[in-house]
């Protein structure tokens, strides 16, 4: 896909998202762009001040069981280092800045766990969790609407559904681990997550 196609989709998606107050342009997109184009350290400092404490909070939730707090600090720096280096690959048509930085933090975390576990590396995390070729534009547009939906619906989830989402996405636990921790059958965890997702208009058939 050429870069002009990307920007077309990006502007379409912005037009759609711009309908409500929550559709205001993401101010962090401009910061990322300045870092990418000019290695702008002042803008990067703003990004760091905003995102580093969130990244640390995310990593702390995932690693409390197997490591100390200084590790979260070290990994946070690693994530922001990647933000600096990868700024030019950020594509606002594909993801918000929040989602983009979340994926970098998520991949850094899983990469760290794997490197700690074993020395041999036959495959890189980025070979598995990569941005595959862009879906058809139609899918992209539906996706943007869903993104707004997620924002609005998240707050209305019943507590037991919000809890399983929190454990899966923020505490980085698999369905099996959540089932074990909450002493629930795997099927119950699966149906709670599916129910929560369907309220967010993420309708997975199975």
């Amino acid at each position, binding site marked *: 896909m050429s870069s002009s196609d990307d920007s077309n989709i990006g502007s379409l998606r912005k037009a759609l998202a711009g309908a409500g107050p929550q559709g205001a342009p993401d101010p962090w997109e401009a910061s990322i762009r300045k870092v990418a184009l000019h290695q702008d350290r002042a803008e990067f400092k703003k990004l760091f001040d905003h995102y580093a404490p969130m990244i*640390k909070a995310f990593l702390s939730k995932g690693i409390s069981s197997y490591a100390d707090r200084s590790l979260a600090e070290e990994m946070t720096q690693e994530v922001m280092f990647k933000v*600096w280096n990868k700024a030019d690959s950020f594509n606002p048509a594909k993801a918000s800045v929040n989602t983009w930085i979340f994926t970098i933090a998520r991949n850094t975390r899983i990469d760290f766990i794997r490197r700690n576990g074993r020395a041999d590396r036959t495959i890189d995390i980025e070979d598995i969790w990569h941005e595959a070729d862009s879906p058809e534009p139609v899918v992209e547009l539906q996706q943007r609407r869903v993104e707004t939906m997620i924002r609005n619906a998240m707050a209305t989830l019943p507590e037991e559904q919000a809890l399983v989402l929190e454990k899966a996405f923020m505490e980085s636990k698999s369905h099996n681990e959540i089932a074990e921790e909450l002493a629930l059958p795997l099927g119950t965890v699966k149906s709670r997550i599916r129910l929560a997702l369907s309220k967010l208009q993420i309708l997975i058939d199975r």
Partner: protein
Amino acid sequence: MISYHPDSRYLTDFATANLPLAEAVCVSAHLEFCGKCRAHVQQLTDVGGHMFARLQPEAVSEDSFAALMARVGAGAQAPAPVTVAVQAPREDVDDTAQSNVFLPRAVRRLVSGSLDKLRWVQLGKALRVAPLQVSDESRETAIYDIRAGGRMPEHEHRGEEITVLLQGSFSDADGSYSRGDFVVRHAGEAHQPTATMDKDCICLVCLERPVRPRGLFYRLLEPLVNYRLQRLNRSVA
């Protein structure tokens, strides 16, 4: 036309990066064939992004930014991501030759670029298998190549089996499967896949534990097969 997809558990555990590596490789492979599941994973990742943005921030140490900028200033580079040439699945390409098989990025990496370089073990007339090293001890991962029209020995699964079809198609008593399909078989289910006549069927297979062949001949063969696979694993590792 893709008819079999990963369920919500696979997609969610993939999007949160909580799937065992070998299973994640299978989901990742399916995603390159399936725009719908790719869109679902994007949606799920957005959920992560929203929850992430609502976390109670935790202060980082005061010298953290300075330390980071010292690293940046020193021209340190993050480990460069492996760039693999983009190769889109194409319906119009003649993929009968093995070297033309479209391989998803994760698989391409695991086979070092080409199926021809793999160390194949012939198992009977119709099937050959090449084990892959995926640093995941809970699973065995391999590429299966079933000859056109060939029939695999009937086998029963002791654990869960995931198959992603990379080329060709096969059928068993439960249905027929074509390129991109993500087929899960649970422990205790027995089946005997048969490749369609027109071309070889190439699959990515991830097994919880080795399958147990049912026929007497293969049961006798099993220790040998296991031995050969283990020896191969050792020599590859």
